[in-house]
């Protein structure tokens, strides 16, 4: 049996998440009525044990075990929960903040290691784009068409009268400098080292 003593319990997690810069200013986290609409629509739920409703409940209960829950890494940020939630909560944002908390404590580096290529391609091109590391997977999923698109992208854009979207020269350097000065690059390396030194 769960015994509840007279201590009021901490609300630390809720407050930290509500005040995180990633959370929308009017996030309805505390208004969650546990209706489960998020879970019923969640594509990650359909393919894993991830339950956004329960994640939010654990946050509201200040249950730190949620940080060790492997299922929170299955959310892939489709934002369906956010666009459906009847009280304007965003389980998706809550998830991002939780994950960041885990990573900053040095845990689960493996989970971000898989995505490090995104960071590096940001450094290289100055824009967010799908890194070449994933090409093989995408070709497997979408077929030859994807390869053709990727190879001929610049020609296609030119044909459509669109500019080159790659940053160049000073602009690219500026973005790079910002990413270095702000510690972005250092963080990428920390995660990389953490995983590679283990293996």
């Amino acid at each position: 049996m769960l015994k509840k003593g007279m201590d009021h319990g901490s609300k630390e997690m809720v407050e930290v998440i509500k005040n995180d810069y990633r959370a929308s200013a009017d996030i309805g986290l505390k208004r969650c009525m546990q209706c489960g609409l998020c879970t019923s629509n969640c594509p990650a739920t359909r393919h894993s044990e991830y339950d956004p409703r329960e994640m939010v409940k654990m946050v509201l209960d200040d249950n730190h075990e949620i940080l060790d829950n492997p299922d929170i890494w299955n959310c892939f940020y489709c934002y369906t929960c956010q666009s459906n939630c009847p009280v304007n909560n965003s389980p998706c944002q809550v998830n991002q903040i939780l994950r960041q908390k885990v990573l900053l404590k040095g845990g689960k580096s493996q989970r971000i290691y898989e995505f490090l290529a995104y960071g590096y391609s940001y450094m290289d091109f100055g824009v967010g784009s799908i890194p070449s590391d994933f090409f093989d997977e995408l070709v497997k999923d979408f077929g030859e068409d994807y390869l053709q698109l990727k190879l001929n992208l610049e020609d296609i854009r030119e044909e459509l009268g669109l500019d080159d979207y790659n940053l160049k020269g000073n602009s690219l350097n500026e973005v790079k400098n910002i990413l270095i000065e702000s510690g972005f690059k250092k963080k990428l390396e920390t995660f990389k080292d953490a995983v590679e030194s283990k293996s």
Partner: protein
Amino acid sequence: MNNTKSKTLETQDIINKTRATKKQDSFSTKSGERVGVFICRCGGNISDTVNIQELKSSIDANFVGEFENLCSINCRRHIREEIIDQNLDRVVIAGCSPLTHLKTFQNYADPLNPYMVEMVNIREQCSWVHSDKEKATKKAISLVQAGVEKVKKAKALSKIISRTEKSAAIFGGGISGITAALSLANQGVKVTIIEKNPTIGGFMVKIGKVFSPEKLAEECSLCILNPIINDVINHKNIKIMTKTRLLRAGRRSSYFNLILEKDTSFVHEDRCIACGKCADVCPVEVPDEWNQKMTMRKAIYKPFSQAVPDVYTIDVENCIQCGKCEKVCNMDAIDFKLKSEIISLKSGSVVIATGHESYDLTKRPEYGYGRFDDVISQLDLARILGVNGPTLGKLQKISDGKVPERVVMIQCTGSRDEKTDGKRYCSKVCCMVALKHASIIKDKYPDTEVVICYTDLRTVGMYENYLRYVQDKGIKFIRGRPGEVTKINDKLVVRVEDTLQRKPMEIETDMVVLSEAIEPSEGTMELAKKLNVGLSQDLFIKEKHSKIKPANTDVERIFVCGTAQGPKDITDSVSQANAAAAKVSEQIKCGTEAEPPVAVIKNSLCSHCGKCIEICGFKAVYRDEEYISIDPMACRGCGACAGSCPEGAIEIKGLNDQELFAQMDGLLSDKKEGEVRILAFLDNVGYTAADTIGNNRVTYPESIRIIKIPSINRLMPEHITYAFDHGADGILLAEYPDECMLEAHKAKIQELSDYVASKGIASNKLRFYKAYAPHFRGLAKQFENFNQDMLAEKGK
């Protein structure tokens, strides 16, 4: 042209002169007033702290007497005798709070006009809050003398009598409107029911059955409603106008001038005998609203068999005017030349009973309403289950006419939903409606499974009995709000998480029923706009006070009942309708006296700018055809309008300027060198809090001198100047933050603060305080701090 100009100049001159004499008046004392002062010892409550002998001998008046218990009935004789013997024409009672006994002493001083009686509160504001006898006595003298000076400026006033016309217009002919109409008609009030549809009865005639938590059964709604409707038809005091809506409304002091438009139906209602031959020959077929568009009707039709009035009507929008019905009508009742009528109606009161609309379910496309045939609303289901409905009461799927094996109901569709197009509120009836339909289905089709997906089941009060009754029939409940209804392999699938089991699931079903929200109707909003009635945040008609005035609107003599005011069931609608009728009746029978203070507009000075209309949160000021007028019944005499009037055309009858200046003068004139004096202007709530300080014997400094005002809006910059010029060290303005006057308060605080700043007076000398009756200690603290700050300032 010249003539007009000179006239305007003349008028301006008069205003200036009036203002000038007003000012002069306040500085000179007119002779001839004979004031009697009656001091109450209050059985020691006052006399133990205040030296009554000293007080008595220090007051300058035509008569000063002391009494042990002035409120006792034998003192009535003393007061009357002295008034006659001493030829007094005004009276000061020095004793307790006017909140306790003003009415008593106005009565005791009966030969005099009640406004010639001034009460000086030397108990709650002196003997009970000060302990130093010498200081308390000095303060008492100052308070009483100020009362004498004030009462010298008092003017006799009479109550304002306003007679409300003995008639009422009721907008909406649903259960609420019908109930209110019948109650009023039975009390002899002439009632007109104005209904936009071709028939009265509203939603209740459509829903088939109603839930009864008492009998634990579903009762036939038409059987309950029909006798009431018959009473309405046959009542000599009720007139029903269908297909009619409000065009314009004009407000007068005792009635509303309503301009109505009755749409033509091309049918002489008095000739039609409802034989139905016309509909037989009509070639036009359109979806029938009565059956939620699940069946067809003709362009000439009677909405349903028991429709009232019992006549056929032509849907002008869809009629092709082929003339077939005209030819076949034996009664000569059809006439395509009939035009819409404009009707003027004079009505003492208005009741808004315009009801609600059902939530547009296509705004929640994820549930598939309109996309999948067998996703229907609860109202659709009500029609299907109705014996006079499209399937004559048989539960059938629209897609194939088969009885569903499973029905999944989705609660809160559009309700409790903060998303775009959602309604934040709980629609209150849907849990009961779902249970009612589940109960009917289980009775008739025991093999059909009913699943209700809910977030919270709200079967409040006695309705819990009904829940238990339906639960016993074997309904399946899933606690979870579905995210989607989709079709997989030709079967409907509801995606929902069973949150109690932490199990996301897909429920296969062949029928889905959405429990649609109740939403405010467009017609209600339009009507509110024309009548200048306020709406709530959720766009229902806003009641004047949700706790104590639930049937009043913010406009005097306009009332509201039923779902026009917010989601509610039939029981609550009927209660509120009766309450609205009682309020109309009260208005007609007793609500005819208004007491000052009230604001009055001098039409000759008014320039019709309308600033007063804008500032009045009580909506007491309105524009009729010729003038801007103030409804004395709605006016609180707060003075906001007078402050906003650029022409000085508004006078507050009740507390005049001369009285105010005289009282300030009196409270400041005995101030000694080095002493601090703070004038505290308190509204009724502030004054009550100050009395409570006394009742609890909490102390505060003698320097605080209280002046009772109707509202801080009553105070103008000249009052502030006057107080500072005559020795006030500080001024405190305390008022209860009444919601509907918040803007006016803010503007007033700004105005006075700016004014004080412009005069180079330190901002901490003029303070504002939000008064709450139970928080008297806060006010006492405010007094204490203000005094200390001003003392410190003196010390510098």
